[in-house]
C-alpha cells in the first residue's frame, strides 16, 4: 500500500518550562530553580477568565501553552466558534490531581471540584470553551514521551479534511514519585499550531508514517521539543506554496 506524505505548516508554538514560558514574540524567563512556575491568568490571557483560577496545576500548564501558541499563530478569541482540533500527548496525565483527590477520599470528604479535573482531557475542554473550538479533542497517553503520535494524528486530521487548523502538543507534570523505567519525563507543556495553509509559518512538518517526521522536508525530528528548537532557530517565513 502506498503511504501518503502528510504535510502542514507550523504557524505558532508556545510553552511552559522550568526555565521560561511564552512564545517566540514574548518570553518570560525564570531564575534558575527546580520547579515549574505557578501560572496566573494574567500571565497568559488579555482579559480576566475566572475558570482559570479553578483549574488544577496540570490543566493550567496545558491551557497556558495552548494560549501562548494561539497568540503566536495570531488566532484570536472571537465570538464565532472555530473548527480547530486539539491533541495532547502525555505520560503523567493528571496523576498529581488524582493523588490530591485520593487524599480527599481518605479524609472522607471527596471534593467534586478536584474530581472534575481528574481527567487529563479536561483542560482541552477548558480551552475549547475559552477559544470556541469545536473540532476534535482528545488525549494520547504515551509511553515514549516524544509526542510524535499526537503530531501524526494532527497531520492526519488535516490530511483527511476534518480541520484545517490543529493544536498539538505535550503536557507533563513534574512528578518524581512515578517509576517510568527508562524514560525521562520533561516537565512542562509545549503546543504547536499547525495549519493546512497560511500566510507565514515557521516552516513545514511532514510525516510518512508513525515513525518518520521531517522539518522542512529533510530535517528528521525525533520529538516535539526538538521541533520547537528548530523553529526557534528559524525566522518566520513567508508562504511560498506547498513544497510537495
Amino acid at each position: 500500500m502506498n503511504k501518503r506524505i502528510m504535510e502542514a505548516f507550523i504557524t505558532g508554538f508556545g510553552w511552559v518550562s522550568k526555565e521560561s514560558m511564552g512564545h517566540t514574540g514574548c518570553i518570560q524567563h525564570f531564575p534558575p530553580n527546580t520547579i515549574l512556575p505557578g501560572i496566573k491568568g494574567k500571565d497568559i490571557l488579555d482579559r480576566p477568565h475566572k475558570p482559570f483560577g479553578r483549574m488544577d496545576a496540570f490543566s493550567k500548564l496545558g491551557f497556558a501553552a495552548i494560549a501562548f501558541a494561539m497568540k503566536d499563530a495570531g488566532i484570536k478569541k472571537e465570538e464565532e466558534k472555530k473548527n480547530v482540533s486539539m491533541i495532547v500527548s502525555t505520560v503523567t496525565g493528571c496523576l498529581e490531581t488524582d493523588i490530591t483527590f485520593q487524599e480527599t477520599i481518605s479524609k472522607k470528604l471527596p471534593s467534586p471540584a478536584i474530581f472534575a479535573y481528574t481527567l487529563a482531557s479536561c483542560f482541552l475542554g477548558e480551552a475549547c470553551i475559552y477559544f470556541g473550538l469545536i473540532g476534535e479533542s482528545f488525549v494520547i497517553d504515551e509511553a515514549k514521551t516524544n509526542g510524535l503520535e499526537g503530531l501524526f494524528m494532527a497531520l492526519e486530521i488535516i490530511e483527511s479534511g476534518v480541520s484545517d487548523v490543529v493544536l498539538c502538543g505535550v503536557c507533563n507534570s513534574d512528578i518524581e514519585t512515578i517509576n517510568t523505567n527508562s524514560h525521562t519525563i520533561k516537565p512542562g507543556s509545549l503546543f504547536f499550531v499547525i495549519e493546512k495553509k497560511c500566510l507565514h509559518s515557521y516552516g513545514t512538518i511532514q510525516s510518512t508514517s508513525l515513525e518518520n517526521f521531517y522539518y522542512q522536508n529533510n530535517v528528521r525530528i525525533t520529538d516535539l521539543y526538538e521541533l520547537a528548537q528548530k523553529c526557534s532557530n528559524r525566522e518566520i517565513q513567508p508562504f511560498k506554496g506547498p513544497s510537495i
Partner: protein
Amino acid sequence: MNPVYITKTAVITPMGPDLESLYTGLINKKSGISKITRFDTSRYTSPFAGLIAGLDHTKRLSLIFQLSDMMIEQLGPIENDTFLISASTKAGIDMLEKNNIKSKMLSKDLLLSSLTGYIALKLRLKNKGININSACASSTIAVAKAASLIQMGVVDSVLVCCMDIVSEFVFSGFSALGAMSDEPARPFDKNRKGLTLGEGAAAILLMNKEKAKASDIAPLAEITGWGIANDATHLTAPDKNGSGLKLAIEKACKKAKISTDDIYAVNSHGTGTKYNDSMEINVILSMFNPNKVIANSIKGSIGHTLGAAGGIEIALCTKILQEKMMPGTFGFLDPEKGAEQIICPDARPLTGDYILTINSGFGGTNAAIILKKP
C-alpha cells in the same frame, strides 16, 4: 477510499463474559447491576454498580489488568503487525488505593500507557500502541481514529481495546458531583435520578478489505462514518442544544455519504442523567424522523462503563445488525417528554441498513459512529 471492517470482537460486561450474554440479556430485559461489596458505599449516593464477576480486588494486580487478561483470552491470537489503540479514562486507578500515596515511589501501573503496554506485551504485538482518553467518548473516538488510519492507508489493521473498572476513586467522585442515582439508572425516564457506574471491556479488530481477505475473515460490520466534535460550552455538562453531538453526527453522515433519513436505529449514550438524556432527546428528535427511527440505551442494564462504553456499544451494534433486533431500554418506564416517540422500552426489529452509535463526555466531547452490515 478503503472500506473499514470490524472483523472480530471480544466483550466482557456485567451481563456476562461475552457479546452473546450481553445481547441476549438486553433482549430479555435483564440487568447486570448489583450492590457493591468491593468497597464501603455507605458514604456515597448509591450502593449500585454494574460489576464483572471474577475480578478480585484483594489481589495485588490492578483490576484493569485482570480485566485485560479476560479480554485477551476471549479475543485469541492477533497478528503481531496490528496497531494497538487502547481507550480508558482511568485504567489502573485502583492502584492509587493499593499504594500508599505518601510513598516516594508510586507504581507505574497508574499511568494510562501501562494498560496499552500490558496488552501489547500479552498479545506480542510489534508496537506499544497508544491510549486515547477523551472522557466517556474515549473508545468511540479511538475506533474513529483507528478507522481513519486504516482508510488513509497508514495501517492495515488496528486493535482497539476499551476498558474501565469501578473503583472507589471514580465512584466517590461521581457521588460528590451529585451525578449518581440512588437506584439503578433509568435512562430517558421522566423520574431518572442520574447514572449508575459500570465496568467492562471490549476489543474491536478493524481491518481494511485486503487484510480481511488475506486473513480469511468474514467482516462483522463496516464502519462507514465517524465524527468527533466539541460543544465548547461547559466542562461537566452537555450543551442543552447538543451542538457538538449534532456536529459529530453530521460529520459521520457526511463521511458515510448518507443523510440522517437513512438511519433508522440509534444506540444512544443514555446515561440516565437529567442533562444528558434531555440533550439526546433534543438531538434525535431534531435530526431524525421520529416516525422511522428507534433509539435505546443499555446503561440501565450494565451501568455507565465510561471509557469502555463506546467500544461495548459498537461491538453490540455489530450483533444488532446481524440479528436485526434492537434491544430495549431497561429502567425506561415513564417516558421523559419526547422520549416516547423514539426510545424503545422493549426489543424491536431493526429496519434499514445502518445503525448509529453516539457518546458524549466531560470537556464537551462528542463522538458518533455509523455501522452497516457488510
